[in-house]
């Protein structure tokens, strides 16, 4: 805001005649322009009159009057000059119709029926037909109508349907001139929505569209040139390398005769370095190819666990040679992705992890499905990455230690390639230090990488937690099961001791245990649960008619307690609490400048036994992050002393906060670029108008749960 105000002030000053600024400006603004000359003349007359009447002795007065009158005249002249100049400028100002006539892009206006009502000269020139011939045509007829018979476009040509759409469409396509020749072009079709009618732009009355297009054959030619260059360079580099690599491979195999130890060592050095050079060339070409975007990703439904398995299979020889074990969990998760590129990401991450792992250690790959995407973690127990390098490792030719590229044989481009690919999947990738030893690389991949269309309802997926509900034929059990299912939990129901003990080992995240159970009561089954699986940290919440005060005497294994008859809120709150962390209450910070809304959101979470802090300004938010150490941040974009972007930028500078789970709860839908700028750790975007606080609650609880799980995974290894 301050910045904006400053700009306004500067531009106001710049309207004053150049050169006069600073010195004359205060004068000019202080004295009203018209009548200055008149005043000067009057002043002189008065002085003369006085001189005539009083005789000699008033020369000083006359001189003074002449001086004042001269200044007044000068100022008057200046003002006139300025006014004349302004008038001249105005007549030079370009009229909109001149703009349309001289712009190089073809511009056409279309009426409500999608027919051309006006075409500018550039459109006529580009299409090789007089403007009058273009009016009355549809967009498709205009751009594709002159295509020769053999090159007619298919029925699903996007231009056929484009004009009727009430949102901006665009793309690249060949456009045909009147003579049937064609050129590659980039076009945009923008609807004109009558904004005065309804305030909401999305619902404005559609009154037609504007089509703009331009010739991009030059860009195509450049792209082709670049392609050819890269293809040639790659060929020219590989050809000599083929001979070198082949000769060294045969020599060092000993197949052509034994060589002495010193020579064998030199051969090994030459061989590994020629391999490194090959990888470097491959990686440079890969990175260029992927970043250029000329080979778009081939998205399809992918079973992520398959890609993980494939990557592990591919890396096993290298891992075996290094004495490192590769393990993975087999959680089945489907996402839309380019499987080849994902394989490349995983292979790069695994290869890094293996390279920096000591012998006899383990590298594990974990998949954690979340609300809107899946988090993939590659965890090693190597020497780890210094805190100040966690981000730098994703740059080109960045290695933690300068000697790494020599010792580890990497190209220094692997992680840059990973990041590029992950970003193309609308995901994020980052590195973390493990609490004890080594690093964890995490990749968040959304299930559906396309940005949410405006107006599309946000589908909140069910939470991923599985809850075991154990209790004897109590009539309240179905009610609890329904309640939990409605809040996104998967529910396993059991009524006997045997069933309960079996089910408890099927990967449940929490156990709700009724103290009345067939064959045994809840108290007695507790030690059994622990004895069968002493490592299990599955929290148990007791449902009991007893007073919670007796909790003091209960075994330590009981993480939570809900008294019957059950209050729904209380049950959900306890469950959320035990799932978020043993002992510690989850803390969330809500940054929202609207005090009322902040209060409502805070109220929602306080029901869930979550500690909530509210911040209403940028400054408060930053203070709270340091002091309150939230587990999750709910962030509004507009703040009185800054915005959400400032908060995120600041958080990124702090190691302990840079991966904070974040929910951006904004007033308007954000662009893909804005979303990228706002991403911290696992990040979700909600639009206030489309999401109720209750949905926000469900999302936050799920995120807290999954970040808790991730922490457990990290600390368990």
């Amino acid at each position: 805001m301050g910045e904006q105000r400053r700009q306004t002030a500067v531009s106001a000053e710049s309207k004053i005649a150049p050169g006069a600024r600073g010195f004359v400006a205060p004068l000019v603004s202080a004295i009203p322009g018209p009548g200055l000359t008149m005043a000067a003349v009057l002043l002189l007359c008065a002085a003369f009159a006085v001189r005539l009447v009083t005789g000699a002795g008033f020369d000083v007065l006359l001189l003074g009057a002449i001086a004042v009158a001269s200044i007044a005249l000068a100022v008057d002249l200046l003002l006139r000059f300025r006014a004349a100049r302004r008038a001249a400028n105005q007549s030079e100002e370009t009229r909109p119709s001149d703009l349309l006539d001289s712009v190089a892009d073809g511009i056409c206006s279309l009426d409500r029926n999608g027919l051309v009502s006006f075409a500018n000269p550039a459109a006529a020139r580009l299409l090789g037909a007089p403007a009058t011939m273009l009016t009355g045509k549809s967009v498709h007829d205009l751009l594709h109508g002159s295509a020769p018979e053999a090159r007619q476009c298919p029925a699903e040509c996007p231009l056929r349907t484009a004009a009727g759409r009430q949102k901006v469409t665009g793309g690249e396509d060949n456009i045909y001139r009147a003579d049937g020749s064609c050129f590659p072009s980039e076009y945009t079709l923008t609807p004109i929505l009558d904004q005065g009618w309804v305030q909401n732009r999305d619902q404005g009355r559609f009154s037609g569209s504007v089509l703009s297009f331009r010739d991009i054959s030059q860009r195509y030619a450049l792209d082709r040139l670049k392609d050819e260059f890269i293809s040639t360079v790659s060929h020219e580099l590989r050809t000599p390398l083929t001979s070198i690599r082949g000769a060294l491979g045969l020599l060092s195999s000993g197949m052509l005769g034994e060589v002495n130890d010193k020579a064998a060592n030199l051969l090994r050095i030459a061989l590994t370095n020629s391999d490194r050079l090959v990888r470097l060339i491959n990686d440079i070409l890969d990175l260029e190819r992927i970043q250029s975007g000329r080979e778009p990703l081939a998205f399809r439904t992918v079973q992520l666990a398959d890609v993980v398995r494939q990557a592990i299979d591919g890396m096993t020889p290298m891992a075996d040679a290094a004495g490192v074990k590769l393990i993975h969990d087999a959680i089945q998760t489907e996402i839309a992705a380019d499987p080849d590129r994902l394989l490349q990401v995983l292979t790069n991450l695994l290869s890094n992890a293996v390279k920096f792992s000591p012998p006899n250690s383990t590298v594990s790959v974990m998949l954690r499905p979340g609300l809107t995407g899946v988090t993939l973690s590659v965890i090693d127990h190597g020497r780890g990455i210094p805190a100040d390098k966690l981000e730098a490792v994703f740059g080109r030719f960045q290695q933690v230690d300068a000697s790494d590229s020599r010792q580890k044989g990497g190209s220094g481009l692997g992680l840059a390639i990973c990041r590029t690919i992950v970003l193309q999947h609308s995901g994020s990738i980052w590195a973390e230090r493990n609490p004890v030893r080594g690093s964890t690389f995490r990749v968040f991949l959304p299930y559906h990488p396309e940005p949410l269309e405006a107006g599309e309802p946000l589908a909140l997926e069910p939470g991923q937690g599985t809850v075991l509900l154990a209790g004897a034929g109590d009539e309240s059990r179905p009610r609890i099961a329904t309640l939990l299912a409605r809040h996104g939990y998967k529910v396993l129901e059991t009524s006997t001791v045997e069933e309960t003990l079996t089910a408890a080992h099927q990967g449940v995240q929490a156990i709700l245990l009724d103290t009345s159970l067939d064959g045994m009561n809840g108290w007695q089954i507790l030690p059994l649960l622990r004895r069968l699986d002493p490592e299990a940290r599955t929290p148990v919440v007791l449902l009991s008619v007893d007073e919670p005060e007796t909790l003091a005497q209960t075994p330590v294994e009981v993480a939570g307690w809900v008294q019957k008859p059950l209050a729904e809120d209380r049950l959900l709150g306890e469950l959320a609490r035990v799932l978020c962390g043993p002992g510690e209450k989850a803390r969330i910070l809500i940054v929202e400048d609207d005090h009322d809304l902040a209060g409502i959101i805070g109220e929602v979470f306080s029901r869930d036994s979550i500690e909530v802090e509210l911040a209403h300004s940028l400054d408060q938010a930053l203070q709270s992050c340091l002091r309150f150490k939230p587990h999750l941040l709910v962030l509004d974009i507009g703040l009185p002393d800054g915005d959400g972007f400032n908060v995120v930028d600041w958080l990124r500078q702090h190691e302990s906060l840079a991966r904070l789970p974040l929910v951006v709860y904004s007033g308007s839908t954000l662009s893909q670029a804005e979303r990228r700028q706002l991403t911290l750790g696992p990040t979700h975007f909600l639009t206030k108008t489309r999401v109720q606080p209750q949905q926000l609650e469900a999302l936050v609880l799920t995120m807290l749960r999954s970040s808790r799980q991730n922490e457990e995974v990290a600390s368990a290894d």
Partner: protein
Amino acid sequence: MAIDNSRARADNRPLEITATVAHKVLIIDDEDDIREVAALSLESVAGWEVITASSGAHGLTRAAAEQPDAILLDVMMPGMDGPTTVGELRKNPATAAIPVLLLTAKVQATDQRRFADLGVKAVLFKPFDPLELSNQIASVLGWS
């Protein structure tokens, strides 16, 4: 443990002469050094008989005269390039049935799409591992 053993055997295999039948392979490449390394690799690792040609035109003559079991063909050569050579081989009934494998230093996807249309058995990439080259050819052509 069992898996580890089998992997160790797989890695050692190129060092032994595994082919019982001495296949005859024609290498067409304009680079003398590459021709020599590839020939040496197939001869000493797999024990195959190797004949060579330094241009597409020369390759056509040798292929017709010698009737090799497979042709390893470079893509970028002055004069007649790899794809043209494939076309010429196909036109001559005497060489039409000989399986062709391209050996290329080009990895651009646009290039690869072009190769896919040629009807070759496989596209192998340079630089190749001389200890693995014969295995790659054998597995593509089903020579065990």
